[in-house]
């Protein structure tokens, strides 16, 4: 068990030892984003720009433009994708700068800090920016592997990280790449698409469903932009029920992105689980996930109800 933000901090230290061109920017949240781990080891390569995220994005871009550094910039998702949105769009993305925006504390799993700090819009915001690439890793290994890839992608990147500890899913010999995804199982009863914090929930649901006699597969969409269209279409063809689950608004998140692929390439119904166009609230993260329906029980319920409906297709059920 480890949070993806912690994995990010550890990655910076591990990679920073090997590569002296790694530099890290933060905006007075180093101990929360975990860049403090890097700061401790390499203070001369860590720049705290203060509570000024827009300035941080610009300064980090300027350093990247000057040519010889590999630049990481961090804050909470809310203040990076939200507060510094236009700096990311106009300075970083339009100029197509090689820079890594590592946004921690994404989604409602931020917990007790409440709605003002829970960014449930960042995938939507970043996805509409040309040149931008988006990763959303689920555990320690995928976070570190994705970050390793990011260094050599000559484009702006947004890496979506979480506050809460997540179970270990992958072993270190797994490979991750831009536009890729990971599939667990080959069940044909359904596909659960998940990303980041919700992948482990989807995997738990898969095991429970097995006990109920349903064979489903889970797809970890760790690369959100570009998305693995081929895999989505393949799963739509091979499995009966499609479900997406994410710690993000159902508007503009992976559910929307999958639906966009499906409606153009292989029209099929998709059940979207996520935050339903409301703000989050304070509370312990696990309780919030229960309140907002980001649970294995909710997935299982969707599955069983969907299957029933499939057996009795009525006009009423179609509308639902």
């Amino acid at each position: 068990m480890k949070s993806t933000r912690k994995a990010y901090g550890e990655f910076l230290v591990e990679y920073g030892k090997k590569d002296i061109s790694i530099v890290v920017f933060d905006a007075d949240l180093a101990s929360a984003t975990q860049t403090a781990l890097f700061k401790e080891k390499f203070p001369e390569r860590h720049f705290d720009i203060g509570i000024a995220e827009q300035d941080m994005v610009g300064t980090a871009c300027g350093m990247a433009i000057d040519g010889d550094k590999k630049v990481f910039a961090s804050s909470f998702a809310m203040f990076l994708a939200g507060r510094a949105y236009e700096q990311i769009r106009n300075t970083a993305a339009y100029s197509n700068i090689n820079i890594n925006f590592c946004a921690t504390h994404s989604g409602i799993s931020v917990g007790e800090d409440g709605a003002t700090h829970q960014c449930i819009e960042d995938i939507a915001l970043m996805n509409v920016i040309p040149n931008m690439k988006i990763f959303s890793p689920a555990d320690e290994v995928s976070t570190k592997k994705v970050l390793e890839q990011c260094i050599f992608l000559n484009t702006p990147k947004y890496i979506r990280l979480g506050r809460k500890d997540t179970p270990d899913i992958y072993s270190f010999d797994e490979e991750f790449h831009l536009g890729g995804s990971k599939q667990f199982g080959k069940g044909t009863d359904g596909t659960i698409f998940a990303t980041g914090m919700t992948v482990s929930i989807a995997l738990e649901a898969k095991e429970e469903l097995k006990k109920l006699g349903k064979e489903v597969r889970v797809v970890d969409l760790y690369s959100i932009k570009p998305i693995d269209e081929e895999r989505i279409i393949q799963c739509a063809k091979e499995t009966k029920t499609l479900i997406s689950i994410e710690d993000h608004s159902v508007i503009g998140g992976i559910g929307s992105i999958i639906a966009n692929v499906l409606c153009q390439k292989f029209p099929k119904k998709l059940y979207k689980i996520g935050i339903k166009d409301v703000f989050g609230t304070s509370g312990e993260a696990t309780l919030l996930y229960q309140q907002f329906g980001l649970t294995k029980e909710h997935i299982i319920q969707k599955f069983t109800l969907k299957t029933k409906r499939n057996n009795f297709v009525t006009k009423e059920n179609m509308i639902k």
Partner: protein
Amino acid sequence: MEERKLKQIANEIRKDIIQMVHMANSGHPGGSLSCVEILVYLYHEKMNLQEDNLKNRIDKFVLSKGHASTAYYAVLASKGYIPKKDLLSFRKIDSYLEGHPSNKIPGVDVSSGSLGQGMSVANGMALNKKISQKEGNVYCLLGDGEIEEGQVWEAFMTSHKYNLSNVYAIIDYNGLQIDGTVESVKKLDHLFEKMTSFGFETVTVDGNSFSSIQDGFLQLKDPQKPKCIIAKTIKGNGISFMENQVKWHGKGINDEEYMLAMEELEKEALYEIN
């Protein structure tokens, strides 16, 4: 410094600006004409435009007030970065010379013009030069209206924090912005005191005079402090009917205005040569 030569270049740049805005029938002539001397001085006198082994120019420039793109493009053409004939394609659908700068243009490092963002970028470049012990200065041209953006002041604090003695904030103080005078829109007074208190070694110059700009640069020599030049300028400088007129901030030039403006610039050129 050969002031006469610089004045001739400035005169040519002004003609380019008038032609570009006339051809495009849109653009920002007022704030482009106000900063001609600053840009010509930087590119033809001050900056080291040679490249290092990473094909990186040693001195860097950021046009934070990106709407002065006509002046910028004309100066880049005068240094051979872009072909002069391309200038007339400004703002046209098949042109790379967009209304505001993008780094698709040779010689331009970063897109700009959404106001308030350039100073942070300049700081990042200057900070990199400092930590890498590389030579080179970074010059950032800001508008006086532009510095109403809060990010600019965040950036000034960053310049101060890292003692970026290699960064120059040059403020084109022409006193006018779209909605009126800078004083009436946001009360930008005591700028010299503001900049000094933000840790900048600051001078005020006549930004339309080469000798005054040069004197300003010569006065700035603190090895620890970031530098600021408050350049008092005239919006629309060089074209009598555009000078100090808010309406010429962003407006196309019709045929008649074009003839009048070019005539004035021709006269000035003759006067300068004799």
